[in-house]
């Protein structure tokens, strides 16, 4: 039984570039959330999608956007990358909106 899968696992981008991160939730889970984890900090909420609709947005600039597809997979897009966007990006899926979150391995983004 596959857990939450994220791709790619590692990514190096240059300042100003754009990046797309992908997430596939556990089969049967309709909610996907994205978190950013900067070194030395806990995960910080970016977005939540449930049944393909945005249900929550954290305190991140408009350079960050996301979407959820009919198969419940999700993409996180970050435009005009800054050095400070370097972090581990985590995807979590839940069966319903308010229950246990299952996390993926994360995508390590390095902006140089």
């Amino acid at each position, binding site marked *: 039984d596959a857990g939450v899968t994220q791709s790619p696992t590692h990514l190096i981008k240059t300042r100003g570039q754009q990046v797309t991160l992908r997430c596939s939730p556990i089969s049967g889970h309709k909610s996907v959330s994205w978190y950013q984890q900067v070194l030395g*900090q806990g995960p910080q909420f970016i977005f939540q999608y449930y049944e393909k609709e945005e*249900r929550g947005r954290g305190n991140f600039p408009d350079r960050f956007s996301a979407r959820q597809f009919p198969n419940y997979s999700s993409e996180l897009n970050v435009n005009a990358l800054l050095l400070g966007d370097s972090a581990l990006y985590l995807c*979590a899926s839940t069966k319903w909106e308010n229950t246990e979150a299952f996390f993926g*391995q994360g995508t390590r983004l390095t902006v140089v």
Partner: protein
Amino acid sequence: AQRVTQPEKLLSVFKGAPVELKCNYSYSGSPELFWYVQYSRQRLQLLLRHISRESIKGFTADLNKGETSFHLKKPFAQEEDSAMYYCALFPATGANNLFFGTGTRLTVIP
């Protein structure tokens, strides 16, 4: 606004000794509290949640609403308990996301 505080970034204990990882929160309502754990090279995973009142891997955590705390405890630490531990809060109303503390790295010394 909700906030989760884990005052210890690092905690070292000897094998067999009791361990307590502290977590305090600020939230005006009745949140759901969780402990997540991340072992080396593994993904973040749920350790326990206060509503289930379970003991997982010998760990327990009691929600103290008066002190707004949710400390994680284990009477006898094992080497395999060495990991990063995060306390997290899920609000009762409003936001549908977890609010995490900064984490405590537990090292169990053989």
